[in-house]
């Protein structure tokens, strides 16, 4: 239900932002607080659940959870070198992350029951991360390829950091359900529509829809990213 409310909030904010484009094309859309809070909370919960299976101590689980929540944004901001990272400047993000990490640590068994809900939220959030990353880099006037890269990195960075700290192979890189690929498609959508002169409103909506739809379809139909496909002549034999 919260998801619906937050989405409604997002849409209303989008609508509010359109008139602001009167003085030149607006490139930025400030995401409403609830969405950011949800992004942080979900990241921290997933990090905490992941870490508490690894027999880490309290500090370890908290550290992994917080890194999962803020890692993508931190990597993005370090890459863009655009001042102090957002999660350090705004006081609430770390608080959400820490709170969710604590809940995820001590009530892991109960939180596991919300896994399907979290999966849905997580799916919707792919697009949100991509939008934040893409907009930040568009503001800095980067080339489209770089914009797409930053969008994808800010989406999968937290998960990759989590897996490195837990010493797993990063899930985002392993063949499996589309996650990075959904982010990539979302970022490409944003950039293409932006280059074609679409409004912010259109770009953001299309990105959210494309990345969520791709991810949901992948989960529904069992699509998986392929393992490497060697292109060689049929007659060529491996030595």
């Amino acid at each position, binding site marked *: 239900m919260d998801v619906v409310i937050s989405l409604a909030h997002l849409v209303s904010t989008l609508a509010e932002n359109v008139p602001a484009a009167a003085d030149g094309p607006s490139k930025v859309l400030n995401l409403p607080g609830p969405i950011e809070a949800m992004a942080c909370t979900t990241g921290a919960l*997933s990090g905490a*659940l*992941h*870490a*508490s*299976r*690894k*027999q*880490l*101590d*309290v*500090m*370890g*689980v908290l*550290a*992994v959870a*917080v890194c999962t929540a803020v890692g993508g944004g*931190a990597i993005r*901001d*370090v890459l863009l*070198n655009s*001042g*102090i*990272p957002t*999660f*350090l*400047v*705004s*006081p609430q993000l*770390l*608080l959400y992350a*820490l709170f969710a990490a604590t809940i995820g*640590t*001590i*009530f*892991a*068994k*109960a939180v*596991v*029951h919300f896994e399907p809900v979290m*999966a849905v939220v*997580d799916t919707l959030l792919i697009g949100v991360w991509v939008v934040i990353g893409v907009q930040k880099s568009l503001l800095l006037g980067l080339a489209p390829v770089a914009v797409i890269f930053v969008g994808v990195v800010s989406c999968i960075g937290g998960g990759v950091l989590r897996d*490195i*700290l*837990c*010493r*797993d192979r990063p*899930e985002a890189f392993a063949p*499996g*359900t589309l*996650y990075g690929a959904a982010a990539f498609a979302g970022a490409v959508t944003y950039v293409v529509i932006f280059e074609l002169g679409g409004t912010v409103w259109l770009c953001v909506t299309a990105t959210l829809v494309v990345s969520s739809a791709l991810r949901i379809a992948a989960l529904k139909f069992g699509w998986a990213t392929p393992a490497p496909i060697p292109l060689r002549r049929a007659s060529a034999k491996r030595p």
Partner: protein
Amino acid sequence: MSLLAVDNSWLMGLTLPEWTRLAAVVTGSLVGAEFAVKRGFDPVGVFGLAFAQGLGGLMLLELLLLNGTPLFLQEPKYLIGTSVAAVAGFFFAHLLSRSYPLLMALDALAMGFLVCLGVDAAVSLQLPPLSAIFLGTLAATGGLVLRDVLAGQSPNLLRPGVINGAAAFVGAIVFTLTFQFTELPSGLEQVITVCVVFAVRMLAIWRGWSTQPTRDISDAVWDRLGLPEPGAPKAMPEVDEWTW
């Protein structure tokens, strides 16, 4: 020292003298070198791990906060310090291992210095308290985590063992709280923080205080509240089945 159009304003706000930073870097490098030699790394590995542990925390802090070239690249003394420590570690690791308690004491001091560095940086940039605690802990423990990742092992810091990262966390909290709620003269806060970190770490090593794997308290809380059992799965799914 040439400043390459760098916004170093937070560096000016630091209270602890500069030698504490250098001392912390060199100590971290010695510990990293000893670690690498014990595990049979080659000279490049010893150098790498010494750099990682000595400069890791500082580097992460500067990546996050500094708008320009990291300090350790601008001021050669940090790199010279780690290099000397790495060479010393490569040839005299046995001496270091023999005086391990002393090394640990120095390391606890270095941890205190780094906590102060991180929190000081956040304070002079007027970041919120929680960010200050985060940065203090990151500066003090980042090197250790980076070293373990580079050495290809699961970060020791995150696993149950003798209290380590928690000491930095406590120190950062103490610093932030004293800064927020008391009017202590500048400098005294830092001294208190270093003392707290040192005391916690040393007591933990001496008394063998160690952390436990996290425990789930859902069942206990649910019982106490008289709630129906949520039907929690007895065993959590394996990590491999975890798809997101």
